[in-house]
């Protein structure tokens, strides 16, 4: 299989309400040509609804969707020419593996000789060469996932949609498939929209991630920007762990629990919170130039690879620090009730909208 021509996707003002609930609240989104974009959000956020609107299975109340230059909002699903991998794979149980993959080719009147060639190539691509004659129910979950993927790409669609395709797999297989899916995307280059509620998966695989909540795109950014500089408290708390502390802006400086802090983005002066990632906060032994907050340790949790220390500041708000659990670090871990310092650099102190 060769690199397919890919197209950008332009979504404008797409809205869908069920009764009084807005599943999609006038969504605007630009997906670049050949991009791997993930829609990330909690269940009920509207991410799956948006994907179904793109596939044509849900008719929105209004809005515009363009694949390249073509408006598709009124196009029937079978005319959209997008590949899709379903959450439960939706492999046809009455057909064998090869016939499942042949399904879109037959509908496109691909000659039999070419079709069997392309089926073989697709099976090879998902590392299932020689599995054509198997029945669907004979396959393991991971193998079904690969067949579903082969079926979705065999007709070389310019756009591929994936609806939580890895959620039914166990953790190890899921992590393997994440890397494989991403490698396949890099090889074939089709514009890919991927839905998941697993933030780690989103960060691992995507060029950009759109965080969705309440039927709106909260933030769309590359994984690192999203993690380092979330725009609001929802994004900060949904992706990764975070402590959000109340702060006060006085004389252009940020004060937390009475201490003046250096922060990365002090320009924002209306209602903001200080967001700290626990793994970027150190307990005890602050370095030069660090921001330092004093707190009393309220809990220490050992979690194998890391340990988590939680503390309460003078004003009662909570702060967390996570450290790599090597022997020396564990020797220095404070006990519950100790007074200690939580330190972090200015670059890791981010103000977010409440």
């Amino acid at each position, binding site marked *: 299989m060769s690199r397919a021509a890919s197209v950008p996707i332009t979504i404008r003002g797409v809205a869908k309400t069920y009764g009084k609930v807005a599943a999609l609240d006038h969504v605007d989104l630009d997906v670049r040509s050949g991009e791997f974009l993930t829609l990330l959000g909690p269940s009920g956020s509207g991410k799956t609804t948006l994907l179904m609107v793109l*596939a*044509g*299975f849900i008719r929105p109340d209004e809005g515009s969707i363009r694949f390249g230059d073509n408006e598709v909002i009124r196009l*029937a*699903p*079978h*005319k*959209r*020419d*997008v*590949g*899709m991998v*379903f959450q*439960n794979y*939706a*492999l*046809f*149980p*009455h057909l064998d593996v090869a016939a499942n993959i042949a*399904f*879109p080719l037959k*509908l*496109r009147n691909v000659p039999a000789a070419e079709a069997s060639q392309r089926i073989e190539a697709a099976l090879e691509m998902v590392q299932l060469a020689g599995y054509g004659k198997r029945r669907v*129910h004979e396959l393991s979950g991971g193998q079904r996932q690969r067949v579903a993927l082969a*079926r979705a790409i065999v*007709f070389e669609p310019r756009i591929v949609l994936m609806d939580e395709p890895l959620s039914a797999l166990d953790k190890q297989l899921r992590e393997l498939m994440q890397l494989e899916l991403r490698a396949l995307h890099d090889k074939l280059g089709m514009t890919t929209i991927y839905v998941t509620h697993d933030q780690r998966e989103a960060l691992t695989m995507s060029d950009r991630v759109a965080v969705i909540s309440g039927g709106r795109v909260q933030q769309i950014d590359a994984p690192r920007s999203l993690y380092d500089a979330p725009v609001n408290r929802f994004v900060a708390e949904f992706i990764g762990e975070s402590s959000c502390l109340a702060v006060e802006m006085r004389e252009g400086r940020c004060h937390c629990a009475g201490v003046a802090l250096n922060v990365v983005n002090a320009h924002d002066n209306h209602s903001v919170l200080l967001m700290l990632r626990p793994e970027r906060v150190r307990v005890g032994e602050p370095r030069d130039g660090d921001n330092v907050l004093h707190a009393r340790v309220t809990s220490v949790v050992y979690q194998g690879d890391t340990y988590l220390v939680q503390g309460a500041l003078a004003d009662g708000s909570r702060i967390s620090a996570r450290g790599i659990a090597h022997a020396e670090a564990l020797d220095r871990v404070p006990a519950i009730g100790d007074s200690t310092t939580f330190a972090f650099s200015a670059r890791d102190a981010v103000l977010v909208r409440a």
Partner: protein
Amino acid sequence: MNRTELRRDELRERLALLGLGAPAILLVVVVMALPVLWLFGLSFVADDGSLSLVHYRRLIAQPAYARIFVATFKVSFITTAICVLVGYPLAYVLSQLPRRAANLCLIAVMLPFWTSILVRTYAWLVLLQRQGLVNTWGIKLGLWDEPLALVHNLSGTLIGMVHIMLPFLVLPVLGAMRSIDGDYLKAAANLGASPTRAFWKVFFPLSLPGVFAGALIVFIICLGFYVTPAVLGGGKVILVSNQIASDIELFFNWGAASALGVVLLVLTLGFLAIASKLARLESVVGR
């Protein structure tokens, strides 16, 4: 250790379960199994009380009996075919309706199901006879000029039997259709299938086990049908069960009737065996 105690507990639980089934098992044995065995024995007893194959020899010697069996299978087959042709689209519509509307319509299908077969059969007699509702209105509306012969013949029998058998087909077919995951049709559409092609290439093949199950049930019930052919056939449609009845009522020949019954049972079981070979029975029941 406590292995013996635990095994005894296990055994006690199983016995308790068996106890719950006992009344039903007893009933089936007394009301079904024993009479059938008794009839089976009777079929080998000649009129003078001696053991003989005379009843079976007569079944083979007289071509009239072969004709009755052929007619029975033919009527059952036609009834089944009509039920499939009428019932499949009906089940499809029901499967596509919203659940509430579908259940309302299902009640309409089931309502006659809960009425006595005898009552329904006589109702058809009233509707279909020469001065019946159907003929009166047909002539009034100018659809046909002379009263049609709708009862006391094969068509009357088929109309009655199809009506009675339809729920037996619709229910399993609807069950199969409802168990088809909507994602299969979405996947078909996504891969480029128009709604018509998605139906024929995905929905229809996936609904076939239900059709097979329903058709099998209808066919087998039809093989033993008595009331409807007797009333609506007007003596022109003689099936095995009607012949059995007249052997007993007119000729008091229990041996001959039993032999007919045994042959019908054997043929039915043979048919079931072939059918289940053709499409493995577990795919009907569902994996």
